[in-house]
């Protein structure tokens, strides 16, 4: 049982079955509850942890259907239209779901109905209403729902209180009232909820994961955990995906592989590909680099492969299999990008700026190669640049004001000759302070050449020349 601070002291926020049997309900104060059950064990509520656990469970539930939405703070909504038959119909799916949740130590109520609102109500009230977890269709459904208490409509507590004060306690009683006066007195909320229950008003769901255009899944009779089995299953999935993409003349740009574990958790890994691709062997190599990070836990019971992003792909490209020249380099780029991360590789591109540390940006790997002219500069530039200029400690000064000797990072440097200054101004039109830097090329007695600048009376080390 968990508690949270509320009006008038600490109140119960959630109770387990054992506590419920003792008559405890969420909302009563902890002091009252302890008076009823002195041996009560209460722990503070952890909303953040609860939300994370709900998200984990939602991800796991994608093993049944790709359309899984969070429902409030304590529920999950699964759209099983068109996929219940894979699990032996609705009874089979619900049975499977309950069994797996129980095995993972999660107590849950589940039900199936033809609208989200009806499923919400039926999951929470079918045991008290005396019916199976699957709401029948048509008139039978209406009869069953009509007998439910008003709180099955997801109305606010205040509305439920107001309505019960005028003697309306069940859905049926509300449905029988004339609609116009009801709306005038209590607002549109009761009518909207009622229509959602019957399916007369739409109730769109927001899936936790955007629906991928191509999905293939593979459940296992026995949970797997060995690397060879994962490889074999992944290859099978990629072949099936490749076949479906080929039929539509498409290639994958981004693939997402989900590992559904037996303990109602899951792990996902994604790969991005520089160009559309459907060759299973190549895609498996890209995934294979990451398989060492798979944590099978107590076993993986299913794997789901989604093509999150696809592009048109000509049939002849599929036959190359990385054998031809261009594709070998592209294959290398894909593998490196997937191992180190696409943001950690790139092609240097010139930027038109006066600030040296900003004169290069990391461009994308593909795209045209910058020409020599774009890099031409009037003044010599160092081959190595410090990401941030570092102040130096000038110990003696020439008559011109330039340093004759300085200390930097603990070493002493003697300046033999210098050349400069090259004046670079801050880009005040970008809203920066109008600083200016006077850059000097300095050669030390031992031949090393540094790039130092003076700004506001201080000298900074910024790079070294070859």
């Amino acid at each position: 049982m968990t508690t949270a601070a509320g009006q008038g002291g600490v109140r119960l926020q959630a109770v387990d079955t054992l506590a419920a049997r003792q008559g405890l309900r969420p909302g009563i104060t902890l002091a009252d509850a302890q008076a009823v059950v002195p041996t009560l064990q209460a722990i503070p509520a952890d909303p953040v942890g609860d939300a994370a656990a709900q998200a984990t469970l939602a991800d796991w539930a994608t093993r049944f259907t790709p359309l899984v939405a969070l429902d409030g703070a304590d529920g999950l909504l699964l759209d099983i239209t068109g996929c219940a038959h894979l699990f032996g119909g609705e009874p089979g799916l619900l049975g499977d779901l309950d069994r797996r949740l129980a095995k993972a130590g999660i107590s849950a109520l589940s039900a199936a109905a033809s609208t989200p609102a009806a499923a919400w109500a039926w999951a929470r009230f079918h045991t008290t209403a005396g019916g199976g977890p699957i709401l029948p269709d048509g008139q039978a459904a209406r009869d069953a729902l009509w007998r439910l208490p008003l709180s099955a409509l997801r109305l606010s507590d205040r509305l439920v209180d107001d309505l019960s004060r005028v003697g309306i306690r069940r859905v049926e009683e509300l449905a029988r009232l004339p609609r116009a006066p009801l709306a005038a007195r209590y607002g549109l909320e009761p009518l909207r909820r009622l229509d959602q229950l019957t399916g007369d008003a739409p109730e769109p769901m927001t899936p936790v994961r955007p629906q991928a255009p191509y999905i293939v899944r593979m459940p296992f009779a026995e949970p797997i955990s060995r690397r060879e089995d994962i490889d074999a299953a992944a290859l099978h999935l990629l072949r099936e995906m490749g076949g479906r993409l080929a039929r539509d003349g498409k290639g994958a740009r981004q693939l997402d592989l989900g590992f559904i574990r037996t303990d109602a958790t899951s792990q996902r890994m994604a790969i991005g590909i520089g160009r559309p691709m459907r060759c299973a062997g190549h895609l498996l190599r890209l995934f294979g680099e990451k398989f060492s990070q798979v944590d099978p836990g107590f076993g993986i019971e299913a794997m789901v492969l989604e093509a999150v992003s696809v592009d048109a792909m000509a049939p002849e490209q599929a036959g190359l299999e990385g054998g031809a020249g261009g594709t070998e380099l592209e294959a290398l780029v894909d593998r490196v990008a997937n191992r180190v991360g696409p943001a950690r590789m790139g092609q240097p591109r010139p930027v038109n700026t006066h600030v040296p540390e900003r004169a290069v940006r990391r461009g994308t790997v593909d795209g045209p190669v910058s020409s020599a002219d774009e890099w031409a500069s009037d003044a010599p530039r160092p081959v190595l640049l410090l990401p941030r200029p570092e102040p130096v400690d000038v110990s003696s000064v020439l008559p011109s004001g330039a340093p004759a000797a300085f200390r930097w990072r603990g070493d002493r440097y003697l300046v033999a000759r210098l050349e400069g200054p090259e004046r670079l101004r801050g880009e005040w039109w970008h809203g920066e302070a109008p600083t200016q830097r006077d850059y000097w090329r300095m050669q030390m007695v031992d031949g090393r050449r540094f790039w130092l600048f003076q700004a506001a009376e201080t000298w900074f080390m910024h790079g070294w020349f070859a």
Partner: protein
Amino acid sequence: MTDHAAAITALRAQLSALDRTRPMGGRPPVATGVPAIDGALPAGGLVCGGIHEVLPGRHCGAGHGFVAALLGRLPESDGRILWCRAPGPANAALYAPGIAGFGLLPGRLLQVYPRTDEDALWVMEEALRCRRLAAAVGDGLLPSPTQCRRLQLAAEAGDTLGLMLLPPTARPPPSVAMTRWRVAAAPDDPASDGLGRPCWTVDLLRCRGGGAGNWDLEWDDEALRLDLAGPLAHRPVAAAE
């Protein structure tokens, strides 16, 4: 007797090919353009399909300049150059506008910044194995002898030029690399106006199938080529030895 001499020559050629001191066919070696240095290398240049180590000085850009000058000699038709920068504390990083002055077009580079040394070595091995890259450079990586052996095998498989810019340590461990160089900045001609051409002291510390050597070079920034440094008279005795 002449038959014997011919047979011995053929056997020597075969041995040196097996030893990788000469290319086994495939891409020609990369000459430095300085006859004195190329003459000291058994293949007349840096053998592709092998690892070559360059030991730079501390806080000194000469090693990077030397590598950029070598890479600039690779024809553009050979392909792109992968430049893998080892992770490390905030330190000076390759500055593209600077290397353009050494004949290396920055646009040819594919720069990779892995998060760990392990990833960096993996990237190097994959890159060296790829036949479509002109060269792969490991910047700031110090591979162990075993790792170096792996890189050498990968370079042989891909016939790719592998250049390792080692971190500036006084005594790097022995390795199976084809060559190891030390490149340090040297004072330029004091008679020149302002700062003259970049001058380097280049030591060939070891070379498979060849001896050691020591040269004073300068970078001709107009012709974009390496030259032996001019008159040695003004140099201190230590540098000329």
